């Protein structure tokens, strides 16, 4: 992009020595940054954006550790069973173990279906639509009702992402993203959403098989060895006791969880919807069906497990190298309070350039979401303390309770709870949301300094 054609005079650059200021091209040559580096949610990225994980990986190391230790012990006492039974036993065990680990890693490191936050223009457009109809005395409504398959569904407005959430989407407070949501699983260390649900499902199914298989082998082992030595000695000698204990306890929860999710898959429900009882007869018998179901178990299964996995965020695309410069410079200027004009500074280009850009489409993709780093850190500050208070309750809450269907699981409840918390905070900070969006300059200049030493949002124009 044109690096030195149009630059705002940055007051900080004036204090730099004139020699270095004479080589703007040299200064501007920075490593091109990828979009994941400016991602507004609370996620961690590995392998240059190829892998994504929640910020707190919950008990993922514990899950992995348990699986590896249990399987390791199984392979350790396998030789006994091999000589007594068949050599297939470690083979089957090995295949199952690999399947489990592959599915687990896939679930943990895949983007669950995160929705990108609304750009500044989109958010402003939505605000205009909301405030245009209502009178000045009533707070603008933050829900939208739509008809899905002749059934009324309410869409809620997300204050963090500044958009009306599409159906079946929830804002996960742990990851600070709107996700096509099922639930946030701390065992897996990530949200489980549309894109990684099938990996999660295959993980729990294969884990059920693995634990059942190991349990059966342990029982067989003890039975066979007690025939020779007597039960007490058999139990004392082999390491199978540990296996037995672990498998016994995990088998109930894993099988229960598998059964629960099989039910969800067959009826095309998400954990979130099931726990909240969205479609289960709240309004009486007439209109309370699930509008997304195909009314056929096979079709529901296929739709959930073989459906599309739209990649809604682009992690590895490049941000244009001077995307940060106009954003930071624009924030320090006194902009007229119209967001389209501030965008004019960022998106100024000729129609010919547009055509050229479309040939190099990765450049262009980065240009428009340049609005994101500008607006999202604002609300991340606002709502960051809301999830912080909810965190301790979540990490203790979710562990086994998904399996125990009698107990209401707090994790999927968290998004609505977090929503109401951030709702309250946001309502304090945005008495007039139209004003907050329309005149970003005073708040931005304040926060640009605060965020200057934060994560690499790229507000620092020169380096």
């Amino acid at each position, binding site marked *: 992009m044109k690096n*030195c*054609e*149009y*630059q*705002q005079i*940055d007051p900080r*650059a004036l204090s730099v020595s*004139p020699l270095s200021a004479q080589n703007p091209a040299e200064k501007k040559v920075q490593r091109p940054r990828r979009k994941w580096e400016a991602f507004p949610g609370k996620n961690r990225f590995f392998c240059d954006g190829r892998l994504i994980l929640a910020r707190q990986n919950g008990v993922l190391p514990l899950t992995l550790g348990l699986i590896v230790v249990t399987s390791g012990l199984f392979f350790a006492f396998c030789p006994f069973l091999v000589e007594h039974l068949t050599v297939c036993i470690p083979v089957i065990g090995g295949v199952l173990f*690999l399947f489990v680990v*592959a*599915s687990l890693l*896939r679930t943990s490191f895949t983007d669950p279906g995160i*929705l*990108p936050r*609304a*750009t500044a*223009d*989109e958010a402003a*457009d939505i605000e205009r639509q909301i405030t245009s109809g209502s009178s000045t005395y009533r707070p603008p409504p933050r829900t939208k009702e*739509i*008809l*899905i*398959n002749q059934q009324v*569904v309410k869409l809620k407005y997300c204050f963090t992402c500044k*958009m009306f959430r*599409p*159906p079946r989407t929830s804002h996960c407070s742990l990851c600070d993203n709107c996700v096509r949501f099922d639930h946030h699983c701390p065992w897996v260390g990530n949200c489980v959403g549309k894109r990684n649900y*099938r*990996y999660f499902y*295959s993980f729990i199914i294969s884990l059920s098989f693995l634990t059942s298989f190991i349990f059966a082998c342990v029982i067989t082992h003890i039975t066979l060895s007690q025939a020779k030595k007597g039960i007490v000695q058999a139990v004392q000698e082999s390491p199978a006791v540990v296996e037995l204990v672990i498998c016994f306890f995990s088998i109930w929860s894993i099988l229960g969880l598998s059964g629960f999710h099989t039910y969800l898959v067959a009826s095309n429900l998400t954990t979130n919807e099931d726990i909240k009882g969205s479609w289960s007869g709240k309004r009486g018998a007439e209109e309370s069906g699930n*509008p*997304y179901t195909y009314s056929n178990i096979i*079709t529901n299964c*296929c*739709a959930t*497990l*073989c*459906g*599309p*996995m*739209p*990649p*809604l*965020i*682009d992690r590895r695309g490049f941000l244009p190298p001077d995307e940060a410069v106009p954003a930071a410079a624009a924030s320090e200027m006194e902009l007229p309070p119209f967001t*389209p004009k501030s*965008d004019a500074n960022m*998106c*100024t*280009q*000729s*129609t010919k*350039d*547009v*055509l050229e850009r*479309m040939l190099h*489409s990765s450049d262009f*993709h980065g240009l*428009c*979401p340049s609005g994101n780093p500008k607006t999202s850190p604002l609300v991340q500050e606002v709502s960051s303390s809301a999830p912080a208070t909810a965190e301790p309750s979540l990490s203790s809450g979710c562990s086994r309770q998904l399996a125990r269907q009698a107990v209401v699981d707090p994790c999927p409840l968290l998004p609505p709870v977090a929503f109401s918390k951030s709702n309250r905070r946001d309502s304090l900070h945005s008495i007039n949301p139209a004003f907050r969006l329309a005149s970003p300059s005073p708040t931005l200049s304040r926060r640009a300094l605060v965020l200057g030493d934060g994560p690499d949002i790229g507000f620092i124009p020169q380096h």
Partner: protein
Amino acid sequence: MAETHSLQDLQQPAVSSKVFVQRDYSSGTICKFQTKFPSELESRMDKQQFEETMQSLNNLYAEAEKLGGKSYLEGCLACLTAYTIFLCMETHYEKVLKKIAKYIKDQNEKIYAPRGLLLTDPIERGLRVVEITIFEDRSIGSGR
């Protein structure tokens, strides 16, 4: 010292406004956009052409999300290989997404760019909206 230029010197049309075409959820969560012609575009292009573009887009997305024999086969094969096959193979959905990107580029080149408009691929907006950027029409002489 940083050189300053005035906006006029650059001869680049500024963005006048943006129109957002929202999703149509009446048939469920499948990706479908509203085909209603936005009033801001009335002065720039034909209603017919716009509706044709949106309808083609909707058809392409429907093709991408179609649950048919091919997607079932893909799903089963992927399941058997513990989903490692996705590391080397492109899914049907991704192939159609590329087709959609090409279609939008074509439409921009042929229809929208000559009228000072630009369609943004909805995948860049998380499949929420189709963003249409309206550029200032310098040929008329008056701003916006």
